[in-house]
């Protein structure tokens, strides 16, 4: 029992040393690095606002066939910025990222297949 725990602990330790499970956040909770200063969050919010304004501009002044890809790219950038900065995945343990990405990837895979099944794309 103790040996098994020691093995598990060795694995945890290796993960920590490899940057997999960061130490603590401000409150001393495990699994989080120190977070950026407030001005960084304000900056991220401003960028998100600008990206939203670009999206709306693209809606009113569509650049032909590039409209849909451009909107999708902007959507992904906004999604990524909120997840990385506001949800702190950039600073937190990679285990959290993996758990979320598993759900996201599963959802995308399942529903893209569904859309193919119903001939959505053609």
């Amino acid at each position: 029992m103790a040996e098994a725990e020691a093995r598990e602990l060795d694995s945890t330790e290796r993960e920590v040393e490899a940057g997999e499970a960061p130490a603590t956040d401000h409150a001393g909770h495990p699994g989080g690095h120190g977070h950026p200063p407030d001005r960084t969050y304000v900056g991220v919010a401003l960028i998100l606002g600008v990206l939203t304004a670009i999206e709306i501009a693209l809606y009113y002044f569509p650049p032909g066939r590039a409209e849909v890809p451009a909107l999708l790219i902007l959507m992904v950038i906004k999604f990524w910025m909120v997840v990385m900065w506001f949800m702190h995945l950039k600073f937190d343990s990679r285990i959290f990222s993996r758990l979320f990405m598993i759900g996201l990837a599963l959802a995308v895979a399942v529903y893209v297949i569904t859309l193919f099944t119903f001939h959505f794309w053609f």
Partner: protein
Amino acid sequence: MSAEVTDTVATPGTSVAASTTGAAAGAHRTSTGLSNEKLAMWIFLGSECLLFGGLVSSYLLLRRNVGDGPGPHDIFDIPFTSVSSFVLLMSSMTMVLALSAIQRGDLRANRVWLCATALLGSTFVAGQVYEFTAFYREGLGYTTSVFSSAFYTLTGFHGVHVTVGIVMLLSLVVLSLRGRLGQERSEAVEIVGLYWHFVDIVWIIIFTIVYLIP
């Protein structure tokens, strides 16, 4: 680091240590070294991706079936929805500022930012209610067409999520006013924040796919 970690498994039968550094001494011990509550929230959010993925893909499949009712671009008010989207984006900023405040021990600023987030969220929900009412008056009821059912179900589910988030935010404010939400419990704010930001990213997707893409 090795010595710090090894110390924590001195007693056989106990769980493997959560703390990986001395700084985490006050934290709960878990077998992963991570907060169980936070881990649970991330797993929940991963499962929510499947829920909203299903609703979004259903909408994509059904949006052309407008029947005799108005179609998406006959009724959407893009300037109004754009303002709502901006409001929700800014609520994510105030949420993360609330977390930052409690993590540095500024409880008053924490309450102010939590209230601001709840207010912005309420503004968004009020906008959604107004939008639904306007659509209904223009002849788009829930059962008018397959498109309308898919649209109301998707955006309605999101609105319910925002409403639940507002209730959680106000609960945090009440806890804080009663002195039960100090710096040492900042993780509660972080977990509610994760939920709130998730609701925001879902709207980022809905706004683009439902409203903007022709």
